[in-house]
């Protein structure tokens, strides 16, 4: 599996540096090199890493942040009919300092973008971003003067959820995809142990993965009766 490496920058970013900050590069799985060097420490690192990742992915605390309509469907996922607690992500935090991931649920307005960036910066590593809904993904149906055409113009996005708005079930699926990707991540086990880069796995595209199955559907239920 290929990985994207982002290194924490030591220096303060220059004024003209544009968001998202930090250099990105495509690399091989760092764990592989470890195993080549010493089978024992390699295995140990692997087990430790998996355990930490397992812990991380099953207690994701979302940041209570909503922009527009999509947020209503996101909240719906938190209530009893959909019950996000099954995936360990029900502990909504009102402070970015305590949150693990941020869902950009709604339209990203130009007036709001600098504030979103500020809130993202206030979150502590490890942190992730889910972009929920067409607006956050690409501007959606709002190709208009006041809307940023996709939040990835300035934030690094981990999972995109399509829909306008996505159903709560789609949000839950997005969350699970984020969990899968967290399981594959390689992060430093401590600030004194090993390489300080963040390696994110390049996860397979869901569209390609499910395409064959999806195009086999030829008959759709008629909407004439319920």
């Amino acid at each position: 599996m290929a990985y994207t490496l982002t290194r924490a920058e030591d220096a303060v970013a220059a004024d003209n540096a544009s968001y998202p900050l930090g250099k990105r590069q495509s690399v091989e799985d760092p764990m592989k090199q470890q195993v080549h060097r010493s089978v024992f420490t390699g295995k140990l690192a692997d087990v430790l890493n998996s355990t930490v990742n397992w812990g991380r992915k099953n207690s994701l605390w979302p940041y209570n942040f909503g922009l527009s309509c999509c947020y209503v469907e996101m909240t719906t996922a938190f209530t009893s009919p959909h019950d996000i607690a099954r995936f360990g992500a029900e502990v909504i935090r009102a402070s970015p300092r305590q949150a693990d991931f941020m869902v950009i649920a709604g339209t990203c307005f130009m007036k709001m973008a600098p504030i979103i960036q500020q809130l993202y910066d206030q979150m502590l590593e490890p942190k992730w971003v889910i972009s929920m809904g067409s607006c956050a993904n690409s501007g959606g149906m709002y190709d208009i003067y006041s809307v940023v055409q996709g939040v990835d113009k300035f934030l690094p996005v981990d999972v995109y959820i399509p829909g306008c708005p996505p159903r709560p079930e789609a949000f839950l699926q997005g969350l699970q995809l984020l969990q899968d990707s967290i399981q594959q991540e390689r992060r430093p086990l401590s600030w004194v142990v090993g390489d300080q880069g963040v390696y994110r796995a390049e996860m397979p595209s869901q569209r390609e993965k499910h395409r064959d199955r999806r195009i086999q559907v030829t008959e759709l239920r008629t909407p004439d009766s319920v």
Partner: protein
Amino acid sequence: MSIVETDTSAATAPDQRANALVTQLREQFGDQVLCEQATLTGMPVLWVNRGVLVEVLATLRRLPEPFEMLFDLSAIDERLRSHRHGLPKADFTVFYQLLSVSGNRDIMLKVALFEQDLSLPTVISVYPNANWYEREVWDMFGVHFEGHPNLYRILMPSTWQGHPLRKDHHARATEFDPYTMTVESQDKEQQALKFKPEDWGMKRHSEHTEFMFLNLGPNHPSAHGAFRLVLQLDGEEIIDCVPDIGYHHRGAEKMAERQTWHSFIPYTDRIDYVGGVMNNLPYVLAVEKLAGIQVNARIQTIRVMMAELFRITSHLLFLGTYLQDLGAMSPVFYAFTDRQKGYDVIEAITGFRMHPAWFRIGGVMQDLPKGWDRLMQGFVNWMPPRLKEYEKAMMENSLVRDRTKNIAAFDTENAFAWGVTGPNLRATGCDFDLRKKRPYSGYENFDFEIPLAHNGDAFDRGQLRIEEMRQSVKILQQCINNMPAGDYKADHPLTTPPPRERMLEHIETMITHFLQVSWGPVLPGNESMQMIEATKGINSYYLTSDGSTMSYRTRIRTPSFPHLQQIPVLMRGGFVPDLIAHLGSIDFVMADVDR
């Protein structure tokens, strides 16, 4: 396809009271009243000279049957408009729409302005809620209002260049370089958002104390979306506050100028985004007026039914979040369980949950599916016991009562002055509900009541909505029992999309169909307007057609905009927790404020 100018003289069947009023104004102001414009808005539209504007408004405000409320105020960029026969010359027009609750009627005044001299006197002294509307006109059109205390931008960032609703301002984001944000620009924008009390005439300290300025929002759990309030505090007491909006401005009005009449429908869903098809209703009704389409009783009833169902889901969301803001955790779980039940029905009928965009010009998207009544009956049976439970568990709860009774209370007079409509107005004891006062879409055929309360406080606003849900359930039951038979699309050449069967008759019908589906219908040049009792108050669409496939100007008047403007008046002297209770009780969503 030929375009026919609709015969406006017949359509506006001049009602005598309106005539008498116009005559009276003409007598009083002579040729300062320039002309009366024939429109399909259903109200007299008068062009007056700038010099007498304030005086005319003051006169209307003081009539024996006064126009108590400034319902709407906005502008039109007239520079590219071609269908303006007989109207005074103008580059920009600013219009003032007044509502008389006591007389149950409206009037619109228009003032012509020219590019070299875009300025008007402010009318805040007559109608205090003109404040935000005038700021909006300044922001969107660049019209200056003399004497306005703080004429700053309201929707766009203060760093913005240009006035978006002018015809020469770009509409699309993609007409520009892709958006980038640098460390420097982010810092600059953040600095621009910094609150300076002096700009708002606020002192940093009094004789005895130094005030604290608290920034609540634009991301705060109780702010219900991207909304910011700056509080001037003396300890826990709110001395003053300044609401700051525009973090949710999606340019819906500009969008209407480049979508066809038909393809704008989905954008209306997203105005009051928890109101679903309720938003489609005023828009399609206004378009149908322009097109001259009459729909049958089945279409009307289907529309009412779906709109009322959305009223219930919207009020449920209100109830859940209102109580959550007060600190009660579980109500939101109950309310959302019920919403889910509602959505099951909505989804079965429309195929979508939140934004079905299901109404069409001249009908609805599809007939009701077989078995809809069974599902709807299930929901109608489910709700009443739940509502009873809510009343018991929540509204009789002593904590809730203590937090909300006598909090942020206002009377009917105050509501009029600030443009408050809907349940918030009815909580003050005024029974103004358009479904009864000016029935549209067949509401006159239903048997339901208008719940009222009398204290106009946060508690009443909550309680009233539970009662409103009961009435909506009652309407749903009547829809199930008496759904009329008939087509789901009107038989009219401008019904969009046109019935498919008609397309296959011969080549001419095929071409017409093709044009109407690809370009969209062409509506005759005119102006029309429709107000409805939406979930949060009165929502209206004021459409100006220039005889093309797109709207020339679409003005969307939303109820939440004035409701937020009223906050400082109510909160001065209150405490921070009261503010939170009040915010919960207003029932607003930011898309309904900023559009």
